[in-house]
């Protein structure tokens, strides 16, 4: 079984534009759905709150690792064992296991190739409250449909 996630996506935008969208804390917040307290600084904790409907109780707390302009942005972030509102709010998150997220950019003829990897799942205990994740997964799917409907209407 693979213990890492890898995503590749072609973006029709210049690498400078993508770099800004990924590393400017306000722009990152727009697409990631998080309200961050301040700019990303390597070696420092980035704090904020998730703004995604249904997840507003979840804190964002990541440690920025590397910022190599137009090349690499990386951070470590925690994986709580439940996202259920009551369970999450009561939980102690100081010891949540973390994974490493790396976002690499490459210039292409049509724009930018973004390669995202998330690794370190081998540190994570298998004690997730999957019922809560399943419930939330339903929530996400519903939200995606809302966005699709909204975009289709706007077009």
């Amino acid at each position: 079984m693979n213990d890492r996630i890898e995503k590749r996506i072609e973006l029709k935008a210049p690498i400078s534009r993508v770099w800004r969208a990924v590393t400017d804390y306000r722009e990152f917040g727009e697409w990631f759905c998080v309200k961050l307290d301040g700019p990303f600084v390597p070696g420092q904790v980035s704090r904020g709150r998730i703004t995604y409907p249904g997840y507003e109780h979840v804190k964002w707390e990541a440690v920025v690792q590397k910022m190599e302009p137009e090349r690499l942005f990386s951070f470590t972030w925690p994986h709580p064992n439940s996202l259920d509102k009551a369970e999450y709010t009561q939980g102690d998150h100081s010891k949540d296991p973390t994974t490493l997220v790396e976002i690499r950019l490459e210039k292409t003829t049509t724009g930018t190739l973004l390669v995202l990897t998330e690794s370190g799942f081998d540190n994570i205990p298998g004690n997730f409250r999957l019922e809560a994740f399943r419930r939330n997964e339903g929530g996400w799917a519903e939200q995606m449909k809302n966005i699709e409907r909204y975009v289709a209407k706007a077009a």
Partner: protein
Amino acid sequence: MLQKQRSSLAARERAHAPVFAALGDETRLALVTKLSGGQPRSISQLTKGSKLTRQAITKHLRVLESVGIVHSVHAGRESLFEFDPTPIEDMREYLDFVSKQWDHALTRLKSFVED
């Protein structure tokens, strides 16, 4: 049957040790492969054909037991070990969940930078 269900539930609840780390060892992976056929096996059966001692095999089985991948069942005077795929399936399901969240986030990033 009831007894088995109860013990499996208890194992799930105490499964707080990293599943991947437990599998990140050749001997343990080989043990899991041997057991994954579904047939419970004794320590002697599992030691046969291995260069390791019975004690070493037992130690590896205990690690697998601690994350709930393997359970021991008593058959007379002997301990048999059997495979339980639940922790591995749970881990895979969680990875699928995280993976899907990234798909959604990157789709939003795409519309954000391409507009």
